[in-house]
């Protein structure tokens, strides 16, 4: 794997050390027929994103099952990079998810990986069209554990469990954590669908994290009318509950007792 100006820059992401070393061996074998440069290795989705923020790559060999952030989620955040690499998923077992992969022509290799398959996949790699976010979201079986934003060429991750509320703005969604605000380019209704277990809609344009609700407060609006507002853990700001969503106050009141 000598340095070559046109070498294909490859990153391996897998949580198991022997699995990475196996791919490394195979890449060396492939390097005989065309120039390949291994630019880095990562043991989790998080590590991968940090690595790619510094070292751009052409191809990522991405294990699907990894702790902390699995391959399918990492692939979604990767798209926020300026020049996202092509992704070839690797997996130890053909489970039902792979049907969806085939349906959407997403590239994957089944472990143990055969030299010839890897060779073919890498040969095609430069021509692979980047994955589409909606496709990835469709094939990912679980909601993401993070949202991501791009800042100065790097992908910043926001743990979903840290988010207090999500509020729809004109083109963006404001993501509020205890510390700060971020803007993400996603639709609130999509987010509501994905995180339906963790968030509850209190207003046409606002979802709050169920786990961070500490209470409700009566707020008086003009003309003697009063409405409920949500108090969230770690935030001074109180969020009004719309007239149509007043019933959630009762539901939560019961579960908080």
């Amino acid at each position, binding site marked *: 794997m000598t340095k070559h100006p046109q070498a294909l820059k490859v990153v391996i992401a897998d949580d198991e050390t022997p699995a990475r070393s*196996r791919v490394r061996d195979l890449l060396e074998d492939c390097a005989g027929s065309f120039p390949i440069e291994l630019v880095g290795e990562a043991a989790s989705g998080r590590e991968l994103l940090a690595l790619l923020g510094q070292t751009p790559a052409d191809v990522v060999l991405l294990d699907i099952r990894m702790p902390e952030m699995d391959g399918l989620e990492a692939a979604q955040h990767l798209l926020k990079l300026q020049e996202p690499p092509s992704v070839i998923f690797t997996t130890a077992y053909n489970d039902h998810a792979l049907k969806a992969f085939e349906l959407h022509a997403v590239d994957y290799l089944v472990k143990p990986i055969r030299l010839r398959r890897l060779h073919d996949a890498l040969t095609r790699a430069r021509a692979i069209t980047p994955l589409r976010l909606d496709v990835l979201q469709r094939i990912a079986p679980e909601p993401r554990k993070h949202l991501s934003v791009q800042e100065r060429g790097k992908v910043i991750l926001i743990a979903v469990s840290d988010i207090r509320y999500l509020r729809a703005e004109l083109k963006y969604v404001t993501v509020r954590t205890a510390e700060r605000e971020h803007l993400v380019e996603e639709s609130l209704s999509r987010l509501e669908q994905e995180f339906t277990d963790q968030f509850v809609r209190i207003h046409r344009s606002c979802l709050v994290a169920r786990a961070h609700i500490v209470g409700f407060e009566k707020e008086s609006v003009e003309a003697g009318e009063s409405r409920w507002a949500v108090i969230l853990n770690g935030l001074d700001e109180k969020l009004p509950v719309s007239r149509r969503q007043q019933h959630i106050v009762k539901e939560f009141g019961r579960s908080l007792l």
Partner: protein
Amino acid sequence: MASINQNPAAALLPNFRNLGVMLRVLVIVTALTVVAAMLKSSSWGSLLQQWIGIAAVVQPIAILSVLLLGAANSWLHKLEYRFAVLLIVLAELAVTLLVLRFGALILETEMADAGRDVFFAVATTLALIGYFNLRNRALSPALTEARLQALQARIRPHFLFNSINAVLSLIRAEPRRAEAALEDMADLFRVLMADNRDLAPLENEVELCRQYLALEQLRLGERLQIEWHVDNMPKDALMPPLVLQPLIENAVYHGIEPSIEPGVVSVNIYHVRDQVHMVLRNPYRTDGNHHAGNKMALGNIRERLALHFDAEASLQTRVGDSRYEVHITIPYVKAEE
């Protein structure tokens, strides 16, 4: 000359030394006495009196029978089923007559309507033997099924392919470790594909678990820490095979793999009097989402324990303090020399 129909009684007679079997006998007999008392008494008021009268005769017979059968258990199991049943019926007749005779002596009365009592004793004995026979038959397909499941779902395919992958990665750099790993895999799959209906010594199961964990450690490295507390383990205790291994597999799958940080799987095996305890602990993560599979494995193991030990075995799970704990208790049955 042995005929084809010659059944060894072991397959059809219950284990009379098993606590569950003894309890079943006593409970069923007691229930029958209540029914008899109801039939005999004309009003609710006289029910208790009738029952006491019946129980005074029947309970000593039942208790004596349970003790006698318990004592003769291993001997009965060596006989042909038909002979064993015949002997049990004769023994019941003897016990019944003995108790009636003794009762008559104490109460200084004549032995009245012994014929009817004898008839009830024989009928109850045959009914109970029939019941245990049916119960054994009903449960044995579960054994076959358990074996099938052992083949199909025991080891997660995910584990097999990851292990092969790990071994492949070792072949070039560390051929000797690759050899050892393949040997472990061979042993593991030999047990998985064997007929696992018979009990096997505990030390075999522990060895199997060690081999399994060696393979897991190959791919998980530092992330998997194992603590064995087995110094006081009764090596010769018999248990159904593949009870600990799937639980350890669960522990690794749910407790270790979902995190990048190292975690500890601890195995603690000891015996207290005539019970063997096996306690398994692993880190518990609330965000795990593979619980369905876990419950299936637990149900399967519970069923097999019940099949072999009836009420004398138990499997309990406890979640707390970010630890998950499985506690198995089985009777200490030694391997016969």
